């Protein structure tokens, strides 16, 4: 490590033999650089750990208070289990193919433990006039679209707390102009085991079509909406339950559109921050088409929009149509209110049915309506009456994108519906003294057990 030799000596030296330092000066850095480039590290991502499932050991459902003529709560096991089901402390037995019933006026907490917990379903219905709703399980968020808070069209939100601890809900209200300032609907406390009814016309009186988003911030709640149409002076008020939907969708399929004369109002709500355009189409057994003369609907951000479809639907239903499809440029919620023959009928978006399910329906003329099949397949239907006797066994073939209808016996109260090789949207329209819609949804048989692991602090 001293100074370099004199230039003359260097020249003779290099001529004699190649300089080893030159060789090293090439090899060493090359090797070092190559190794360095190979020694990079990257953060190790943590893979998603989906939850495992396990059969439910307890199911809690909340039924809203009764409407006139609809005192009876019906329960059934969707998986053919038998055993006692607890309805507000009273035991009702369910058995395969059999429906248990109990007449209760107020809200009801349905509790099924152990064997009857998986696939437990409950519903409340009446036939005079026809009304029906299922008793939902608690969910974190639920949308109700086409709600009213004025004298002619008013709605009551009913929150049922099925658990022992207190629960709190926040209700967001949208109208045609935007978000309604409704402090009274924020932080609504429902003590354990109780229910609370919120009459919107009293709490936030206003005209126009509203949409509600019910968010449970504490505890667990089920939400249901009673919707009353009061054409002042001209007829008796008519009430039915208004089905909700868990989340906005870009494509919503609403089934159970009744035939007959009367106003039909579709309400579309846009929960997003951008204006959306929505296209309304009519669903028939084998096609979905846009009616002539119906323009795209513009829905302002965080607001609702009303579409009058009285004429279009009257003609279409007469031609065999039974549903609506709303396709929007972003997620929306939707609800259709039909007042036919003096009875209000609420149609709401139907979830896709992927497996066997059961539905509790009121007696009356009824039609199973299917739409939007995911592929070629079929739907097998078994209908039973109140005594458990099989009254119909049918199979409806499915083609992609299409649906179909199936008329079922009047006395059928329990439908077992099994889609085969395809998923489909399904609802039952019951007609008689007015009409009611029962939407079919997948049974909840399993609970999710999240994967738990130690985390970084």
């Amino acid at each position, binding site marked *: *490590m001293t100074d370099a030799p004199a230039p003359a000596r260097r020249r003779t030296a290099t001529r004699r033999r190649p300089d080893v330092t030159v060789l090293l*000066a090439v090899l060493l850095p090359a090797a070092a650089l190559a190794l360095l480039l190979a020694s990079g590290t990257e953060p190790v991502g943590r893979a998603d750990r989906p939850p495992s499932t396990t059969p439910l050991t307890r199911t809690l459902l909340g039924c809203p208070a009764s409407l006139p003529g609809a005192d009876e709560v019906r329960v059934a096991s969707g998986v053919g289990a038998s055993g006692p089901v607890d309805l507000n402390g009273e035991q009702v037995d369910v058995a395969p193919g059999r429906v248990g019933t109990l007449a209760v006026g107020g809200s009801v907490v349905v509790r099924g433990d152990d064997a009857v917990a998986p696939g437990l379903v409950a519903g409340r219905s009446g036939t005079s006039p026809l009304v029906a709703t299922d008793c939902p399980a608690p969910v974190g968020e639920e949308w109700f679209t086409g709600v009213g808070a004025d004298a002619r069209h008013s709605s009551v939100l009913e929150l049922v707390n099925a658990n022992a601890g207190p629960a709190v809900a926040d209700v967001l209200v949208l109208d045609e102009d935007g978000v309604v300032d409704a402090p009274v609907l924020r932080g609504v406390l429902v003590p354990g085991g109780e229910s609370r009814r919120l009459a919107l016309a009293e709490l936030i009186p206003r005209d126009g079509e509203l949409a509600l988003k019910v968010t449970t911030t504490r505890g667990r709640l089920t939400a249901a909406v009673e919707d009353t149409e009061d054409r002042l002076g001209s007829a008796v008020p008519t009430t039915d339950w208004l089905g909700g939907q868990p989340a906005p969708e870009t494509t919503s399929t609403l089934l159970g559109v009744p035939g007959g004369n009367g106003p039909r109002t579709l309400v579309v709500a846009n929960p997003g921050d951008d204006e959306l355009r929505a296209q309304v189409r009519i669903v028939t057994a084998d096609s979905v088409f846009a009616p002539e003369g119906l323009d795209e609907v513009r829905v302002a951000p965080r607001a609702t929009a009303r579409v009058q479809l009285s004429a279009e639907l009257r003609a279409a239903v007469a031609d065999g149509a039974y549903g609506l499809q709303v396709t929007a440029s972003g997620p929306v919620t939707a609800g259709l209110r039909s007042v036919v023959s003096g009875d209000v009928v609420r149609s709401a978006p139907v979830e896709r049915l992927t497996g066997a399910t059961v539905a509790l329906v009121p007696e009356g003329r009824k039609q199973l309506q299917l739409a939007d099949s995911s592929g070629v397949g079929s739907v097998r239907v078994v209908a039973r009456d109140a005594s458990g006797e099989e009254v119909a066994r049918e199979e409806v073939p499915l083609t992609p994108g299409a649906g179909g209808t199936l008329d079922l016996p009047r006395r059928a109260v329990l439908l077992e519906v099994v889609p085969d090789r395809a998923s489909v949207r399904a609802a039952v329209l019951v007609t008689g003294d007015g009409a009611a819609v029962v939407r079919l949804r997948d049974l909840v048989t399993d609970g*999710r057990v999240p994967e*738990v692991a130690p985390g970084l602090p």
Partner: protein
Amino acid sequence: MSGPRSVAVLLVSHDGARWLPAVVDGIRSQTVPVQQVVAVDTGSKDGSDELLEQAFGSVRRVGGATSYPEAVRTGLDALGPADAGPEWVWLLHDDSNPDPTCLQALLAAADDDPGADLLGPKLREWPSLRRLLELGVTISGTGRRETGLERGEYDQGQHDEVRTVLAVNTAGLLVRRSALKALGGLDPHLPIFGNDLDLGWRAAQAGHRTLVVPQAVVFHAEAAHRGIRRTPLTGRHTHYQERRAALWTLLANAPGRALPFQVVRLALGTVLRMVGFLLVRSVGQALDELAALVSVYSHPGDLRAARRARRSGQVADHDEVRRLLAPWWLPYRHGLDFLGDLLAAATDQAADVAERRRAAQAEADPSSFAARRVAVEDEDALGVDSGLVARFFTNPVALLLTVFVAVGLIGSRVALGDVSGGGLSPAPDTVGHWWRLHLESWHELGAGTAVPAPAYVLPMALLATLLLGSPGTAVSAVLVLAVPVGLWGAWRLLRVAGRLVSPQGAPRWVVLWGATTYALVPVASGAWGDGRIGFVVAAALLPWLAHAALGFADPDADRRWRAAWRSGLLLALVSAFAPVAWLLAAVIGLVVVAIAGAVVRSAVRDRSVWGPPAAAVGIVPVLLAPWWVPALVEHAGAGLLLDAGRLPGLTATGLELLGGRFDGLGAPAWVGLVLPVVALAALLPRATRIPVLVCWVVALVTAATAAALALLTLDLAAVSVPAATSFPLLVVQGVLVVAATLGAQGLVAGARRAGWPTAIRPVVALVAAAAAVVPLVGLGWFAAGGHDSLDDDPDSGIPAYMVQSAMTGPEHGILVVRGDVATGLDYSIRRGSGVSLGEDEVLALSPEDEELTRLVRDLVSRPTGAEVAGLAEHGIEYVVLPSPADREVAGTLDATAGLVQASAEDRATRAWQVDRPLDPDAVAGPRSWLRVGLLVVQALAVLVVLVLCAPTTDRRRSR
């Protein structure tokens, strides 16, 4: 001068045959007659007694254990009755040779000043003869013998006036016999040393005066003091005897009112002096100090008797005596001098490796270039001495360094105050927290764990303790000072490295570039802004470590060993902050020793060549034992391959490693790639190609180690992380800087000799300009700020009232569950004020508590009362789902009996209180005696290594 006085010489000898012939000649050749010579021999075994007998006819033989005071008494008794015998007694030692005119001068002074009763000569060194030893002595408040002379001061007549002093040495003391009798002779409690001081002090108190007469000269070998002569009285512990004498003298003579103060002061002073001696590895002297103190303090009766005896003869006021004592400030002055010496020795240590190698080379071959160069440098040593300020302002490099540091401090402004964020957890509130973390073998963190605290907790705790117990200040200090300390270290390293390569060293502009470029590595890499304190500290210390390691190349084996302890200590410190450093050092050490062994075969056989590097690497596990061993025992060995700080640590792709950047962080990446290009270009100048190749060898070994590390993925309980490659990144950057600096040095050296070839001028200018951009852009980027994730107010998302409750005890834990059901939930348990710096590693390395995991899973899926009770048993008071809380889980917990909903500021955060009595011993755990033992081992090892690596002030060793 009046008529001749009667003088008796009293010569005491003990094994003094080496000097006696000359002493006898000295006595015989006195220009004034000596009436009588009394020789006393204290059991000599070398024939001294016979020499004396031949010279003076008779000799009194006494036992070898006879003390000097007793021997003098024996001699005085031989003089006969006091009123009949000679008037004066002249005390001489067997190693003190009087100048022929000595006695004459002393007597003349006595005549001039009849009031003087004790007269002492000027003592000069024997055999060098010209160096002054003593011109009268006094004693300082700490018992130090003060001569008022510089060490080795030459006698040029500069002190030649007769003065009154406290005492003079007994070698050559001319004392009026009556006065000596009145004083009771020498104190028999002081057998060899210090009896002269005591005599002088007593004489002064009794109203006698002591004069030093510089015209009288005695040459003194100080045989006993230097340990040349060993007597049964001194034994091997001359220091013990000297110190004991000093303590005795001070305590026996100090005025009564000052005594309590003096007793305390001397005891504390002894402790301080012991520490000082231990620091310079003089264990024997430290023990002597202690023994002397114990010896004096354990005989208070003797002291009381001695004080009583002195009081009876006291005539003079103490204030008069005090004039003769050393001034009060003198011990402090000596302390300052000592510190200065220590500092000089410390900074001198390796800066001179290059020079010492050259000097050793010159010594080995006086005809070599090296020898000639040393001669030339010595002549240059007397340079122009201008004022410090003037030199600073006329030195652009110094000015630029100052500007760099100032701008760097501006850039690090965000680190002031309490900081956390990125990879940095908040510092704990008190330093006691860190000490507990370090000393405890079971940590009440998470579910309770025996995983040891990371090794850096100890240095941080020490630093925080020094900074008045503020951990926050310690963290800020580390972050703020990292760049200046790294700059200083890099400057020293590059200067020595340059001078190892060639005597002129690297041009200062080049060193400036290299040092600033390196100092900015932690900043430009993004580690600083991400709060990666481990990397930052390692970066600041690495050049110091490399500098210490250069000591392995020292020509002196003793210095190589000292370099070993020094490097070992620094390596341990760096490894505490960047554990991979030890592994890398071991690999580099192996490769370097292997290459050295292949090149110089003899090196392998010489233990002092391979031993020091091996010791430096080997001592690290011992110094870090309380962390190292329990980590392995507790299955937390992954920590040895991880960076300090929060996980996951920083990663870097291959190109980022080369450019000195961490993933997604740091200054513009293209700037980082300039350095490797410059380092490659550094291979071109022939003059420095070999040292640059050495740098590339280190880079190669580092890259190979990094490549091996990159293959490892460490699966911890909570996270999987790649092994840390940040330290290799740092080393690569450092090595590239050194290579580039040396290359530039070679280029400049070549150009100085042969001029700049026209063809390469533009290329050189281009490379230089590109290189200059690196520190400039880095510094500008840093000073601009805003690239960091440091924050002074970390938001944990945990409600404040819960934290307050948690701080009341470890059993008030908070179970924090993050994530959602769809992608999985992660839980952690927060205790106390939350995770603070030093606890991240403990928690991350703790193995999973599977029972607790099962409990949490049951709790969030299908809770029953058993799960809630289980929470209480695990010391969990609250369950928190931070925003955004999973609704499903929240709903489940809401519906659980025994969990009471609790409020949180953020409505998206959900919380519950466990409504069950908490188990106060929920997180308690056993004490590990193994770790206690390891802590003791560590403390001892640190002390020993500190002593071993301290610069020596012992001239015998430093020679």
